[in-house]
């Protein structure tokens, strides 16, 4: 057990709960009378309040982006490689904010929490959300923290959609927008994978039509299966070949043996699925995958992404990864082309990586240098 944190870590991260009593009008027409957001912050807000950076998490992410909750935590937050003193998003210069989004299952108001109006768990009755609802709730959080304008809003995958929506909804409140491994909207293939995952959850007998908590059960198999499918799509063909190949975890193909054979890739996927099923809420998974499917940046701009981006005032950094087939480089190039057509400032890099979609979370020398260089310029304007 280590008795101290690494020197380039933000160290002990303490989540804070912010309660919002002002009702939130949602895009679906319903309203949340009140809500809570769980938030972590790293670094210090400067006197001008000009150095705040919002980190937007992806589908299964949460507020714990960096640092440790306890000295003996096995793993730091989900983006610890990129956030900390001396790291690309340098907490010596930036005040970094990350929250568990509305509808999530790590403490913020969502299917797992109690609806104060009924005294019952929200469960499957939690209102459907759009990415813009997240943006609105995040804007309220910014007001609460005294942040008039973000130095940067940064996100990968669904978080990238969140970041782009920020730049359109509050043009004056975003100086830089960093969009990583994301898209203007999902493709049919992407929606298809999400629906397979949703059906896996819904068809688990323990799902109980979304009322699993009331029955004291968890649709573990459905959640695990959803995660296993998702996980395969987040990795690349090459990476799976390198990491697992056809190696066996147990059993043998020798003649005369009938012990069952298990490939390493099988046990890995089962492990990932089971771990996910322990922590994640099935109703949140259904809710947030629908947010992904419904997101279309340009829908109310006459389906013209350039027209959409003309409302933005931020400068953009767009990043993709060569082996990412879930959010392929072509999707990022569509974002870039729309930004160029809209006359917005943009830098775009396609990072060589065989890590698939997960690359945006993992160490990569070029990606780190690029992000570090970009953020150094952002820091100059703080």
């Amino acid at each position, binding site marked *: 057990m280590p008795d101290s944190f690494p020197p380039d870590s933000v160290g002990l991260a303490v989540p804070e709960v912010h309660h919002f009593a002002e009702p939130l009008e949602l895009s679906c027409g319903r309203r949340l009378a009140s809500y809570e957001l769980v938030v972590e912050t790293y670094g210090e807000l400067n006197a001008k309040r000009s150095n705040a950076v919002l980190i937007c998490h992806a589908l299964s992410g949460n507020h714990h982006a960096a640092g440790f909750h306890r000295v003996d935590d096995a793993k730091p937050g989900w983006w610890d490689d990129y956030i900390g003193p001396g790291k690309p998003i340098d907490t010596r210069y930036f005040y970094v904010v990350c929250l568990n989004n509305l509808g999530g299952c790590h403490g913020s108001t969502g299917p797992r929490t109690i609806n104060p109006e009924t005294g019952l768990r929200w469960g499957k009755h939690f209102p459907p959300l759009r990415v813009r609802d997240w943006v609105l709730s995040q804007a309220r959080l910014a007001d609460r923290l005294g942040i008039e304008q973000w130095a940067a809003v940064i996100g990968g995958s669904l978080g990238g959609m969140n970041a782009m929506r920020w730049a359109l909804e509050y043009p004056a409140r975003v100086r830089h927008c960093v969009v990583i491994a994301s898209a203007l909207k999902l493709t049919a293939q992407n929606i298809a994978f999400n629906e397979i995952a949703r059906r896996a959850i819904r068809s688990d007998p323990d799902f109980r039509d979304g009322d699993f908590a009331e029955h004291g059960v968890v649709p573990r198999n459905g959640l695990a299966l959803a995660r296993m499918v998702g996980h395969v799509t987040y990795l690349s063909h090459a990476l799976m070949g390198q990491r697992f190949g056809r190696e066996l975890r147990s059993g043998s193909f020798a003649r005369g043996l009938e012990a069952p054979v298990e490939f390493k890739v099988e046990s890995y996927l089962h492990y990932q699925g089971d771990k996910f099923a322990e922590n994640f809420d099935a109703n949140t998974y259904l809710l947030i995958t629908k947010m992904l499917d419904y997101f279309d940046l340009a829908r109310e701009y006459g389906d013209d992404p350039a027209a959409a981006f003309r409302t933005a005032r931020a400068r953009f950094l767009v990043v993709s990864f060569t082996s990412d087939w879930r959010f392929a480089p072509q999707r990022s190039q569509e974002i870039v082309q729309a930004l160029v057509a809209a006359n917005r400032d943009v830098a*775009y890099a396609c990072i060589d990586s065989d890590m698939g979609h997960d690359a945006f979370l993992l160490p990569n020398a070029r990606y780190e240098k690029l992000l570090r260089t970009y953020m150094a310029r952002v820091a100059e304007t703080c």
Partner: protein
Amino acid sequence: MLRVDLDIVRRWIAPGSRVLDLGCGDGELLRVLMDSRGVEGYGIEIDPEKITHCVARGVNVIEADVDQGLTDFPDKSFDTVLMANSMQVLRRPDHAIAEMLRVGEECIVTFPNFGNIRTRLFLAAWGRMPVTRQLPYQWYDTPNIHFCTVQDFEALCRERSIRVLHREFVAEQFPDRLLKGVWSNLFSATAIYHLAK
């Protein structure tokens, strides 16, 4: 890029215009054009290190391979499309120029003149591929795979009905600077062309 080349290119670019720079390198030229002409500039570059340099300079840069064409860019979406000293590294410079003329109202191309007297003398005297200050590579490690002379380029423009709006020639050494006006193909080190369809 040399100061003289830069001054010539800058003259042909209207203040505030939209400029696309193919093979923009570390973004130096675009930075100068942004600061001195107020252009809305975008660069295309394939080298990761150079892309990072552009980001450090605050220059808009898009990672792409010019040899793959400019298919993502609509017709006439830029006032000027530039290509400074990159033509000779492309697999099909003629295709690139056609794409530049499609995407831009006007184009500017600069290239090293392989018809230069020093290059010719080097080859004639030593019987080996020229290695000069401007072109310091050996034949086996050079990125430059498509050299041409001023005459070659003029011929291409005639064949493809490309209008030459302006042409300027730059020489580095003293006597060449006087003589390049008379025999551009012999005495210019760099040729700079302003083109339109």
